[in-house]
């Protein structure tokens, strides 16, 4: 528990974390507003086929904040771009303060999870408000089950970013892969055109938790299970590698 508190305070004292929060709270409503504006006429005319998606698209596409959160939580431990001295490897300090590496990793993942849940709830708040602002009475209903799906999607995404960064020790690869893959046309989506297996990629499966309640490849529940399986596998891999690796290397 003490390790968990320490990780929380470490996260909140990172300047980059505030950037993650700002993006996390602003990006989804912004996407939702753009999407709502584009669909507004169709929705009012009653011919929109995407009514149930409006708003949720923001939550699906606006995950950049949460990616930054997951990546920074780990990469800040290894950051060496310090202008003074030979570079700050905080990881050495961290691992002398919390001697068990597994405990350290769990505490950190726990802190990331808690902040992700918090951030996703805030993001849902701003997104729902933004959608209502644009569409007024025409705004779609936000069912609780789908909102929970969105929270899960955000949290799992943060943990994926977290696990990848533990493996790579630097934020470059996870940031590049995940941010590119949160683009308007994702690589995963393109891959689904080549092979059906791509529907089992974490983001494609995860989006089925809330984005397409009826028309998805998976049911929301299986989608969630598949994404969670990815998170678990990645976390186990990260834990094993982290356990075996010398800190200095």
């Amino acid at each position, binding site marked *: 528990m003490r390790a968990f508190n320490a990780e929380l305070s470490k996260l909140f004292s990172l300047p980059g974390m505030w950037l993650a929060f700002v993006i996390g709270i602003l990006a989804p409503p912004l996407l939702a507003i753009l999407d709502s504006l584009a669909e507004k006429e169709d929705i009012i005319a009653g011919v929109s086929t995407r009514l149930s998606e409006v708003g949720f698209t923001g939550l699906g596409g606006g995950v950049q904040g949460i990616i930054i959160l997951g990546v920074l939580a780990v990469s800040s431990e290894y950051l*060496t771009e310090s202008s*003074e*001295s*030979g*570079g700050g490897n905080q990881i050495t300090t961290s691992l002398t303060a919390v001697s068990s590496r597994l405990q350290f990793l769990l505490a950190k993942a726990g802190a990331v999870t808690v902040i992700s849940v918090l951030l996703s709830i805030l993001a849902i708040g701003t997104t729902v408000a933004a959608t209502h602002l644009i569409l007024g009475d025409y705004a779609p209903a936000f069912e609780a089950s789908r909102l929970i799906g969105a929270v899960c999607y955000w949290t799992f995404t943060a943990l994926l970013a977290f696990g990848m960064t533990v493996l790579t020790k630097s934020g470059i690869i996870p940031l590049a892969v995940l941010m590119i893959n949160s683009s308007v046309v994702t690589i995963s989506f393109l891959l689904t055109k080549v092979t059906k297996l791509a529907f089992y990629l974490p983001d494609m499966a995860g989006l089925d938790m809330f984005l397409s309640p009826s028309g998805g490849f998976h049911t929301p529940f299986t989608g969630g299970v598949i994404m969670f399986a990815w998170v678990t596998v990645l976390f186990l891999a990260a834990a094993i590698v982290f356990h075996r690796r010398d800190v*200095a290397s």
Partner: protein
Amino acid sequence: MLTINNVVKHRGNQKILSGVSFSARPGRVTGFLGPNGAGKSSTLRILLGLDRATSGSALIDGVPFAELKNPLATVGAALDGFGAHRMRTGRAHLRWIARAAGLPRSRVEEVLEIVGLTNAAGKRVGTYSLGMGRRLGMAAALLGDPEILVLDEPVNGLDPEGIRWIRTFLRERAASGKTILLSSHLMGELAETVDDVVIIHHGKVVADGTLEEVTGTHSSLEEAFFALTTEHAGAVV
């Protein structure tokens, strides 16, 4: 000849240096002393053109660092930290510096030999110990065989052998007429190496003179240092 003339440095609202003046003369080792955060590194950074002084000037043989014709052959600097990218090898690091100054590659091997890093030259800088990092910094400073050496905490992290080597090395260079300015907070070590002492405290020079003058009536340099930096006493000389 290094001349620091009434240098003032503000960072935000903070006053880091408030009118620092002193000089380091050829043929002598000048020790630059002060507690942590007194402004030692800031002064050296301004001298080397890394940071900009709010007012005042820091001159090397009468010109600012950036106007030197051949900086590496005039001033060799080893500041705090490794000064090298962690993923490059020590040799590759020295090679690009040599290339920038138009020095032959054989000079790289020479300085590696001088600082005793030949065996570790092929390893990545990230794997170096603190002491090896300092040696790499010294090697970079010596590449151009400069007339002036500016060293920030040169003995920090060195083993006893390394400390003795630095001491004799610096004495020899000073004896051959070169200018050496080094900062440190290790009094005992400094007292055995330096000719002149400048003590800085809260961004102000509180003492400036030869070792004997600054030590004055105190039993040692260390005593003088504490007397000066804890009582906020005025300049001795």
